[in-house]
């Protein structure tokens, strides 16, 4: 039988697409219940009015992640305390897409939105990797000749490779270590401007994540980070 720990582990792979952090580390997962082959997960967000498109992606991704576990036949994800919780929970429960969750309000699915924020996440992670390399003595011009296999090991490099694969940009060991949003290798001439903008994106994402954590703490009166109930 599936355990709560396995479900939690599956949810570790689900991210807030806007912040590029996992639902678990952000404190969005509040409960996991396993009943035979049925799993129920409860989610919460920092505000009642968090954008419905990102909220939908988190609920749908959570369902998909849990249902890939062997032994799980149905995962019911319940987003709570949100102005479109009912629409999202119902649609994801039925296996319906975003346009069906909000008939007349959406023109298309959320693939473009997801890809846009994957590119932002990739840019932000690359900024941190570049800064780590520069701090370790790498010359600026050497950044453009580095290969993927030479990225300093760690979470940022792992996530960069994952994002590049998801975006179809390729992450072979011999591919350029740093690429622009459309996958083109960085040219030496554009490096200073790239770095400046990439750092801005990184700061923006980190700042937003900090605000979201703060609002969640205030909203749910969390004085210190909570552990997920097991």
């Amino acid at each position: 039988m599936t355990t709560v720990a396995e479900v939690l582990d599956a949810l570790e792979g689900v991210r807030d697409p806007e912040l590029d952090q996992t639902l678990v580390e952000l404190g969005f997962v509040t409960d996991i219940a396993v009943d035979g082959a049925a799993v129920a997960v409860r989610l919460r967000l920092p505000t009642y009015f968090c954008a419905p498109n990102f909220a939908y992606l988190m609920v749908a991704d959570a369902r998909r992640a849990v249902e890939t576990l062997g032994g799980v036949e149905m995962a019911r994800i319940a987003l709570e305390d949100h102005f479109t919780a009912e629409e999202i929970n119902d649609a994801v429960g039925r296996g319906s897409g975003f346009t069906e969750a909000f008939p007349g309000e959406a023109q298309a699915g959320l693939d473009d939105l997801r890809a846009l924020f994957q590119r932002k996440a990739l840019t932000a992670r690359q900024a941190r990797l570049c800064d780590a390399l520069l701090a370790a003595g790498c010359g600026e011009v050497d950044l453009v000749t580095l290969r993927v296999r030479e990225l300093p090991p760690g979470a940022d490099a792992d996530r960069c490779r994952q994002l590049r694969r998801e975006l179809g940009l390729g992450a072979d060991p011999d591919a350029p270590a740093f690429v622009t949003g459309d996958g083109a290798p960085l040219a030496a001439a554009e490096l200073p401007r790239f770095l400046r903008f990439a750092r801005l994106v990184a700061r923006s994402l980190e700042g937003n994540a900090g605000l979201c954590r703060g609002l969640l703490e205030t909203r749910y009166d969390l004085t210190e980070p909570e552990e997920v109930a097991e």
Partner: protein
Amino acid sequence: MYESNGRKYFVVDGHVHFWDASPENQANKYGAGFINCFYDYHRNLSPEEYVWPLEKYQKYTEEDLIHDLFEIGYVDKAIFQPTYLKDFYVNGFNTTEANGALVRKHPDKLITNGAFDPRHGEEGLKAFEALVREWGLQGVKLYTAEWYGASKGWKLNEYWSYRYLEKCEELGVKNIHVHKGPTIWPLNRDAFDVHDVDHAASHFPELNFIVEHCGLPRLEDFCWIATQEPNVYGGLAVVMPFIHSRPAYFGQVVGELLYWIGEDRITFASDYAIWQPNWLIEKFVDFQIPEHMQSELGTISDDQKAKILGLNLARLYGLEVPPEMQVKGTEETAIASDPLSVP
């Protein structure tokens, strides 16, 4: 006016409210949800001694506002940014009329902006013209996430938006304050994206577009468009309070803004009553970008602070500034004025 170390700062608070979110005025659960969300921003980012009880926060008095902004407050002029939210509140959240009533009592201290909603079409255009004439409006506050019947929002670069902006040009309503929210039409797009402002700002070079909250949570998109459009400004409402709870982040944002758009296009705002202006002003005048960031982000000078606190908005709204509070030279100073290739 705020005085520190013998220097006097002229203070224009570019974003204040006089709202009624009391339970009696809430039309539905969304009205309750909206003010509760505002209250969490207030509680999370204010120093403890400035946190109000929820009841006062839902509906405060004219005396509270005058006291906090002007009596104990350092604000010389404050600008109301109306937010109607008529789908959430019976009489609206804070309307031009509610603000205007206070302006008529305190014309030396308060300015009200108006608002328009392009979804109101031809009829709305006439009503908007009447509103501008009645209140002598110099600016509007546009909230693109406003709900209207089945619609959950709108964009600036649409036919009817341009019709209203043309009307603004015609009537001399020069200052267009844009506030993004969590919903938009179509709902599959990023609601906080400010690229529609880029199009509108190019199309209406005589209008000033003040992007409220500097585009947060899309600071990067805001900086990107603002470097390319000389008539785009960054309003610091919601950015300011980080000076207390997360000063390093505040330093990063201010450093980035100075780099990308420069000291002449950043404007102070408290977003009262979400935050009180006094502690924001005191901390800002004492603020410096943390030392370990200075090699990349530089420092901020007293002249730059004076421009941000009041002189920039005084210029946009034609306000008279006492000569001893002026700063010499207002040339463009952004370092990054050439377009980037978006990574």
